[in-house]
């Protein structure tokens, strides 16, 4: 059994796919830049003309009512729309110097740099807790047991799952509670050492206590990875995020960005009256 050690320091961490050493996040610098991003399905826009920067080491929340295109926009950032035949993404998404939608950009490699946690916990049911945690590393070709063990432990500690899971790493993921399963999914995503972690309403399938623990976890994780979180819960956005993007469905049923800015300002003195209405709960 592996001995508990503190998680690897930021400077030592490398992406297992690209071998790039991850820089100590210089908080506040843009790491992802969205410029006029439009996602459409079968020619119909789902989200239109979104432009904003995601700052390194911060938590950026995407808020807005149902149908405002939050999830659609989020899934454009790690090219999850690639599998949908009718989907098309225009505009530009940049991760550091990488153009996400350039023909030369390998989508699988990109996804090891931009991780994702989904609405419903989706651990692999046929794999154990350990196997789930290292699944991403194995997909990326890491075979050495020592490396896998170390990464699994570090990721499980970071996801606050190590204490409860360390003695049953070989147990099936399905033996965990819903909240633990979601933390396992977070650990699984962290193990690959992504630069950005996308979270799509990660607490919407969880009870209030499990939600609280995930929110605390998100706050701790920002020292390790830049987070973009979709949430329909404004209190959650207020509690966890540094910056907020407010989206709303426009006349043509496509979501558009109404306002983007520091969370505190967006909630206390928004510039757009629609944002004010939304954060005050007048609709949505």
């Amino acid at each position, binding site marked *: 059994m592996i001995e508990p050690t503190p998680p690897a320091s930021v400077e030592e961490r490398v992406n297992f796919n690209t071998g790039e050493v991850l820089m100590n996040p210089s908080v506040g610098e843009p790491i992802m830049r969205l410029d006029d991003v439009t996602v459409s399905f079968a020619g119909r826009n789902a989200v239109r003309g979104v432009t904003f920067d995601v700052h390194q080491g911060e938590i950026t929340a995407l808020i807005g009512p149902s149908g405002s295109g939050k999830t659609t926009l989020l899934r454009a950032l790690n090219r999850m729309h690639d599998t949908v035949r009718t989907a098309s993404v225009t505009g530009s998404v940049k991760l550091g110097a990488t153009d996400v939608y350039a023909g030369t950009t390998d989508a*699988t490699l990109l996804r090891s740099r931009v991780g994702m946690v*989904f609405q419903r916990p989706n651990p*692999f049911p*046929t794999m154990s807790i350990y196997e789930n945690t290292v699944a991403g590393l194995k*997909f990326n070709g890491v075979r050495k047991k020592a490396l896998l063990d170390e990464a699994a432990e570090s990721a499980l500690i970071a996801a606050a799952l190590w204490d409860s899971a360390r003695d049953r790493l070989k147990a*099936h993921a399905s033996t965990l509670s819903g909240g633990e399963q979601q933390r396992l999914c977070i650990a699984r995503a962290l193990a690959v050492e992504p630069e950005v972690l996308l979270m799509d309403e990660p607490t919407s399938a969880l009870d209030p206590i499990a939600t609280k623990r995930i929110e605390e976890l998100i706050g701790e994780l920002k020292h390790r990875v830049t987070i973009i979180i979709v949430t329909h819960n404004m209190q959650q956005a207020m509690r966890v995020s540094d910056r907020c993007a407010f989206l709303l469905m426009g006349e043509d049923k496509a979501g558009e960005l109404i306002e983007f800015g520091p969370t505190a300002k967006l909630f206390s003195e928004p510039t757009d009256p629609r944002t004010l209405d939304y954060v005050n709960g007048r609709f949505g």
Partner: protein
Amino acid sequence: MALPNGAYRGLLATVAAVFVGLVLWFVISLIVQAKPAFSTLGFSWIVQKTWDPTHGKFGLLPFILGTIETTAIALVLAVPIGLGTALALAYLVPHRLRASLGTAVELLAAVPSVVYGLWGLIVLAPLCREYLEPFLTSVFGWTGLFNGPDQGVGLVLAGIILFVMVLPTMVAISRDVLAVVPNDQVEGAMALGATRWQVLRKVVVPGARTGLLGGLTLATGRALGETVAVALVIGNSPYIAHSIKSPAATLPSLIVNNFGEATGTELSALFGAGLVLLVIGVGVNAMARALVRSTARGGAASVAVA
């Protein structure tokens, strides 16, 4: 129509009783008909090597082996090709082609077995004799399994015909169970940087393994019991085959070729052969159930959401 609860219960119980009664009647008749053979010959005849009714020898071993060998050849071919085709149909083939290819698969499954047998005998047997068997002998001859003349009909051809027959069943079932692996599993793997192939191999196939085993069991059952098509292409030789190219026979082909003239102990021995076949079939099913039980743990359905 509103029936009182008691009436529903009575109705269902009656229907179920008819079914149970039929099964019992069938099994008991089989045993009763086979009994004279067992009282005359004991039990050892089942595994004896010689089938020679005129001299009172009814050894079933050549037919048991023939049944197992042809089924094994069919499955060795059907498992990789069937799984590959099913994966392609479920995940790789463009959507507009899936429906027509799926229909083609179901069409193949509906072809009567005697037609496959005829096709095998008239079309495949000459090809098998002229091309396939010489080729197999030149590549695998060193194993010693391909000795003897190239004859066309025999174990190889019977195995191939069975493969062609079970393939649609396997593809149709495998495709359906692969397609229902939850999409969030597929996306979960993709989001970790898995390639398309890794998603299929590490997530989709393991996630569907219970259903895949079910498909394999059905295919095995069909291969074990197939009668007419095998009887047409296997060469019907009552001797133990010493080469995969040799003519042989299976338990079903033995029965269909001999019941017409059989009387007395021979007829009873044919019922005995049927009983042995039934036992093999039940055994395969039981094994599959045990396998499913041991792998079902952690199946897709058991992941809890709070």
